């Protein structure tokens, strides 16, 4: 990023809120390129939700523990709350909204539907992306590996059993 091209309001002008540095970023989200200014203290997940209207990624803790904000950054799962939007400049972001194709659910989503892999659904987008990362390049994952992969995503409703079953089913059904 070119730090010279930013617009900075004078931080000393009127207390802490006035000094909102903005930087124009160019980021590819779910295949679409977005170029727009963001305040540098805006997290990636807030940017996706507020600026791009992609509210499928949820904010659950803002300290990197719960995993509800999980998105893929250059195809790897990261916490959307621990990254500033400005840091996604020049990178590719994938969110839950990219999984389904039109009316057709992704095989992972279908498996979660068939096997009761969700209840309130708040943690679900993050869990889907974690599972996507786990299964994308592998077949025949064990339950232990699934549980290990899921250990960075909290779910308070399901007790994880339905989620594990769903991922096992997707491992079978997802042609990849």
């Amino acid at each position, binding site marked *: *990023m070119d*730090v010279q091209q930013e617009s900075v309001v004078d*931080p000393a002008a009127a207390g802490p809120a006035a000094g909102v540095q903005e930087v124009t970023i160019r980021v590819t989200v779910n295949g679409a390129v977005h170029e727009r200014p963001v305040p*540098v203290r805006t*997290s990636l997940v807030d940017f996706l939700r507020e600026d791009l209207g992609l509210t499928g990624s949820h904010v659950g803790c803002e300290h990197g523990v719960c995993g509800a904000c999980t998105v893929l950054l250059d195809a790897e799962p*990261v916490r959307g709350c621990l990254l500033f939007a400005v840091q996604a400049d020049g990178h590719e972001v994938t969110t839950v909204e990219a999984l389904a194709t039109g009316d057709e659910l992704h095989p992972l989503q279908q498996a979660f539907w068939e096997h009761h892999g969700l209840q309130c659904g708040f943690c679900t987008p993050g869990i889907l992306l974690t599972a996507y990362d786990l299964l994308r390049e592998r077949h025949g994952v064990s339950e232990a590996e699934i549980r290990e992969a899921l250990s960075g995503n909290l779910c308070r409703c399901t007790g994880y059993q339905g989620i594990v079953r769903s991922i096992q089913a997707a491992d079978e059904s997802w042609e990849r």
Partner: protein
Amino acid sequence: MKPAPFQYLAPRSIEETVELLREHGEDAKVLAGGQSLVPMLNFRLARPAVLIDVNSVTGLDGIEVEDGTLSVGATTRQRTLERRLSAGGSGAQDGGWALLGEAAGHIGHLHIRTRGTVGGSLAHADPAAELPAAVSALGATLVARSRDGEREIAPHEFFQGFFTTALRPDELLTRVRVPSWPEGTRSCLLEVSRRRGDFAQVAVAAVVAMADGRVVRAGVALAGVGASTVEAPDVAAGLVGEVPRPQLIAELADDLCARLDPPSDTHGSAGYRRALAGHLLQRALLDATSPTGAAAAA
């Protein structure tokens, strides 16, 4: 939980970075993976005026072997370290270096390791963190750069206390260099956390090189038992030249634990941590000194 305002700078080179550090000094914080720093910003427990993001700095990442020494760049992701240096990974030829991969695998969860960096973990200097213990046990060297040049710092000098290192405000941790360990080296990292995947309550890192049934070189460090990573040179020295019998290991562990002064908090008393340290140290040393590693599995 939104961070206080800050100025954001994203230098491209190490030279540019150290210039910025010189300019902003203590007002600045280096942002690497951000997996510890950003939560602190969000809680407003940290409020630097300037964030210097080093993720785009060239020459700061990567894992290389130079003249038998492993060199890991500061912005190398923990997940990369884990993949490359774990048993079976492409960089795991050295029995000692595998400890780094093992330590990295214990850090947080997958999503944290994807983004978290080696340098970030070391410079954050959490006394309960695994990587500082691993580099201490391995006898690594931490390399710091400032406008004035480069200096090498030994772990016991680098880790100075609770979230405190020897880095000066104008210095950037650029890499960690890990010496080669002899053939026949085994390493082991064991930890107990309240819940799997969490920060260690106590972790033990041990590297032991054996020849003809005797220990020829050893390194031991512990996390979670003091204000900083705790190196155990006495334990290492007590092993060298000896046949590592369980009795000897137990005595060395007991000796060390008696001298530890671990913290007490809501997750466990000092006594508990001391007991964990003794137990884990024995198991780790038994594992690292047994040719099959059967001890740790038991």
